[in-house]
């Protein structure tokens, strides 16, 4: 019965949509800034899965190149984001993103 089922691009895209939604939900639900960053990583990875699946489907290496650059930007984002978290924590102890409302207008 399952012998005829073939692995198509659609499978990857469905998984990608699911992972992206999980990441977005986590970003809204969690209050620890570090965990929120991890949720952003989840969303970036969901998009990476899509990129590679589309690249394979279109027989073009462009999808993999996009993932390459997403990886670099993700690393940069984590470095600067964590530096901000450390800098804020040095001034004042805080546990959640709600505690950092000093810049609120």
């Amino acid at each position: 019965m399952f012998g005829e089922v073939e692995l198509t691009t659609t499978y990857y895209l469905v998984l990608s949509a699911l992972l992206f939604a999980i990441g977005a939900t986590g970003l809204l639900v969690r209050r620890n800034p570090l965990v929120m960053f991890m949720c952003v990583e989840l969303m970036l990875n969901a998009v990476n899965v899509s990129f590679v699946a589309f690249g394979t489907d279109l027989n073009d290496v462009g999808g993999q190149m996009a993932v390459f650059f997403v990886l670099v930007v993700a690393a940069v984002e984590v470095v600067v984001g964590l530096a901000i978290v450390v800098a804020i924590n040095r001034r004042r102890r805080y546990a959640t993103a709600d505690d950092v409302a000093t810049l609120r207008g």
Partner: protein
Amino acid sequence: MAELVTFAVAAVLISVGGLGVIAARNPVHSALFLIQTLIGVAVLFVVQEAHFLAAVQVVVYAGAIVILFLFVIMLLGVDKAEDLGIEPIAGQKPLAAIVGAALAAAGIVTVVAAVDGATGVAAAPGIGENALDNRYTDIERIGRVLFTDYLLAFQITAVLLTIAVIGAVVLTRTVRADDLLDDLDPVTMDLASLAPAGANDGDHQALADETDHGEVV
């Protein structure tokens, strides 16, 4: 068939890992679940014969980025369980769940209902250097395209990384009063550089005391 089984295993890894990240009360557990998801994505890359990306995924993401997360968690000592029951905004969590479910539903319906397959293009022939079925191996192909078509983007990446390094150093640097005095212009006694916003408040007072002393002498 083997591909499908591999995909199914990786999909379970990814989904469980993703849910673990958002459900784990301890940030360290979230980081470990994140590694599980990243490894699952690397497996999917291998299934699609993107071997270079699979290796980079494990080395850079699971190796470097998650370790950076763990470093910061340990450094700040925030590895305590978070009470997930607190809601600063009333009704935020149910609303977030609804938004997430809607997002997943929209994405899945869009993909599944797509006409003519996922991209609307029937098995593209692939052109020259960029085709995935040319005579090069995966890494050769990426290298050739990276240093021709994507050369400008690659060089901008270098600038971006430099900016990130400088930004991280500036953000986390602590400035001591002694260091600031070294920056004083010997002629005008003006501060050559200002303390960044992250410097300790006490340092400014210490600096003021020391410069007053210097002027008296």
